[in-house]
């Protein structure tokens, strides 16, 4: 068969998902060297279509089901889109409550990533036995007492979210022009105690990063080296003073040198962002419309842009709180300046944000209006069209709705944060594969490097993963001309098994 040549392919399936299941396809040339690699996402749920016909006020609760790990981000983007749809400004109190809620959500979500998901690679170490590269390994490394503190502070944050927003997984807080529930002195007291501890815990975590990661020359090399690095445009939200802002503001895009490319208001997003469709994956690839889609390449000629913590640092001037700003300067000095292209730097930037979240909660709850009963502005206007944008923990997230005059949704468009990074992730997987696969040979080093290429990019790919002993599931199917296929399976102790591939092959 003529496509035998095309059968020289390595499938990594499954990796964990990004709103579904993920798969990596690596194609080899005649000599067994890597030619191309692609990240494929084989799931689609169609939220944009089935939003049509639903009452607009149901969107915050329906769209939170896009992601159960960061439901708060979709809930907030949808709620802000409703503010715009009904042309209503939330009350001061409502805005305070929403921002407190959102900073708490960030705080627990970011910490989950550092201690449970991506962080173990660093805290325990990329060369540690794989059975230890998980949260229990982290606890061994930092001590049981600290481990308990990690679990405790996260549970306290989630409990406070329950009190403010009904529930952590799929909150019920957001309504156009406001929120559903008034805050009480008791809740504020709990928030005071919590946020003080949260600031201290964030500072401690930055110290853990400094002691364990930055002071280790091997890890420093990974952070600063060229293995995981590409030069793209960056996107993120800024407030009127140019601070990084997760809840509200304009969207700024900078180029590979850190120079402003454009700053736009949320309603203009479709003038700036376009999406490309490929036939081999269920997700789309967002890019900068004016630059154009040039395929999976970086540089100023490619419209590829990246989002998430490092991107937010790259586009903004400074942090909105003093302690976080101090830490940001340390990060920038260490990483070599204002614009950072290192993928692994996301781990560090994320922790600077955690400190910012804790400080923001402290500031917001002391506002005189926090406990006011003025939680909603009921002066809604006839709805027509609205765009809501927030910075999700994983980057710029856009919800756009149109409705009839009764507020029944007629169309919806959502650009999910993680997708902006998928094309870059594909590129990094390809460069890792090229560096580690030669003459068709696959070994554990490859699997680890590929693993790190996507994990550092986007915790949503590892959605809720790695919170228990274990590691990324990796199975590699290697197809070569003239030979029977082989399945290479990495076991939990890190050992590798090889076997003949079955006739059915792997499940695509």
């Amino acid at each position: 068969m003529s496509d035998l040549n095309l059968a020289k392919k390595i499938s990594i399936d499954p990796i964990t998902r990004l709103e579904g299941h993920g798969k990596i396809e690596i194609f080899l040339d005649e000599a067994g060297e890597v030619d191309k690699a692609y990240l494929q996402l084989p799931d689609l749920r169609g939220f944009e279509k089935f939003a049509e016909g639903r009452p607009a006020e149901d969107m915050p609760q329906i769209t939170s089901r896009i992601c159960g790990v960061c439901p708060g981000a979709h809930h907030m983007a949808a709620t802000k889109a409703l503010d715009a749809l009904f042309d209503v400004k939330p009350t001061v109190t409502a805005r305070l409550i929403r921002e407190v809620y959102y900073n708490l959500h960030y705080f627990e979500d970011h910490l989950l990533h550092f201690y449970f998901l991506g962080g173990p690679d660093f805290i325990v170490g990329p060369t540690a036995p794989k059975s230890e590269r998980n949260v229990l390994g982290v606890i061994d490394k930092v001590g049981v007492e600290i481990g308990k503190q990690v679990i405790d502070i996260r549970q306290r944050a989630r409990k406070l979210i329950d009190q403010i927003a009904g529930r952590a997984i799929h909150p019920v807080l957001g309504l156009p022009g406001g929120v559903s529930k008034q805050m009480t002195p008791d809740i504020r007291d709990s928030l005071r105690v919590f946020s003080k501890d949260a600031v201290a815990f964030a500072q401690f975590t930055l110290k853990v990063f400094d002691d364990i990661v930055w002071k280790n020359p091997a890890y420093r090399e990974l952070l600063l080296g060229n293995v995981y690095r590409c030069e793209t445009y960056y996107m993120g939200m800024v407030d009127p003073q140019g601070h990084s802002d997760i809840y509200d503001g304009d969207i700024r895009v900078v180029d590979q040198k850190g120079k402003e490319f454009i700053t736009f208001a949320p309603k203009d997003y479709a003038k700036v962002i376009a999406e490309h469709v490929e036939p081999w994956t269920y997700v789309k690839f967002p890019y900068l419309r004016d630059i154009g889609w040039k395929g999976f390449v970086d540089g100023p000629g490619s419209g590829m842009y990246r989002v998430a913590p490092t991107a937010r640092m790259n586009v903004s001037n400074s942090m909105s709180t003093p302690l976080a700003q101090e830490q940001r300067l340390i990060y920038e000095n260490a990483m070599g300046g204002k614009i950072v292209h290192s993928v692994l730097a996301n781990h560090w930037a994320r922790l600077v944000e955690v400190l910012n979240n804790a400080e923001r909660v402290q500031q917001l709850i002391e506002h005189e209006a926090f406990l006011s009963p003025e939680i909603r502005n009921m002066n809604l206007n006839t709805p027509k069209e609205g765009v809501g944008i927030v910075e999700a923990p994983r980057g710029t997230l856009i919800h756009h709705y149109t409705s009839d005059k009764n507020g029944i949704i007629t169309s919806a468009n959502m650009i999910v944060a993680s997708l902006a990074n998928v094309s870059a992730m594909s590129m990094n997987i390809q460069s890792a594969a090229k560096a580690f696969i030669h003459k068709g040979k696959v070994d554990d080093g490859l699997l680890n490097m590929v693993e790190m290429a996507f994990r550092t990019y986007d915790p949503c790919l590892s959605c809720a993963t790695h919170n228990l002993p274990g590691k990324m599931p990796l199975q590699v199917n290697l197809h070569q001309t003239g030979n029977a296929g082989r399945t290479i399976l990495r076991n939990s102790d890190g050992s590798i098994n090889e076997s003949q591939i079955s006739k059915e092959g792997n499940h695509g």
Partner: protein
Amino acid sequence: MSKVKAAIYWCSSCGGCDEAIVDMGERILAVRDAVDFVFWPCAMDPKYSDVEAMADGEIVVSLINGAIRTSEQEHISKLLRKKSQLVVAFGSCACSGGIPALANLKSKKGIFDRSYLNSPTNVNPSGVVPLEHSHTADGYPMELPKFYETVYKLDDIIEVDYYLPGCSPNGDMVFNALSAILSGKLPPKGSVLLPDIALCQSCDRNSTKPDSLGFTEFKRLIHVQADPSQCFLNQGILCMGPATRNGCGYPCIQGNMPCTGCMGPVGSKDQGARMMSAIGGIMEGESEEQIAKTLDGIPDPAGTFYRYSMSSSLLGSHRKENK
């Protein structure tokens, strides 16, 4: 004593059900002492081949969350069924379709057209849509699982032994269900692992619930601000409490928002029918006209009464194939 072998798998879902397992908090360490998770793609090695190599019935229990929309999800569910003594439909999507099954009100073509052709950000002049078999720009062959015409609940695809609804179930519900399975103190096969009583019965606003009050209009939350001390129905705001199973601790109502029914039906298989009869009993209306006017305040009855159970309803079922 050897540990009990268990598996956790996700189909078309959001990841919230896996977070719910983590939300057991420190109790998950106790569970781990008793359970060996042999397959949990989000947290452990997947080992499809290991599962395939297991004897039939070797896994004591598989918890499967998410609805079924693709051929891959069907394949893995069937594999786990074969290898497991017990299968639990975990969460609203597996039990009855959940939020993804709202897509059953639309066609597959409608979903594809909206996603890939007609959105305001798409630049797709040649009308590319994802295909089961395709090629990359470099000519390499690629495959995707088949995307079905409709969203199935788990027991449309395989036999299910027990159900744990909720979007998502909370940590207590998960822990109690696992404890029941581990201790073998299980109700008859086919049961929901929760008490069969309505949410209203535990709700602290129940004393203000109307029993025969004749009201003539439903109010949408864009038009009213809810009083946190009063039953939502008493305020003319639709709350799914009367038709919905208890067990969640009514966190939405504590957030001052009405129940939307994620725990599934109480007492009957059809949550929507149950809810319509509940509101029928308290609604004023002699003439059809008057009733129709009252129902204007519920502009999306299908998506409201079957918010999480579309795969259990007849709506959109004409697209179902026999599985």
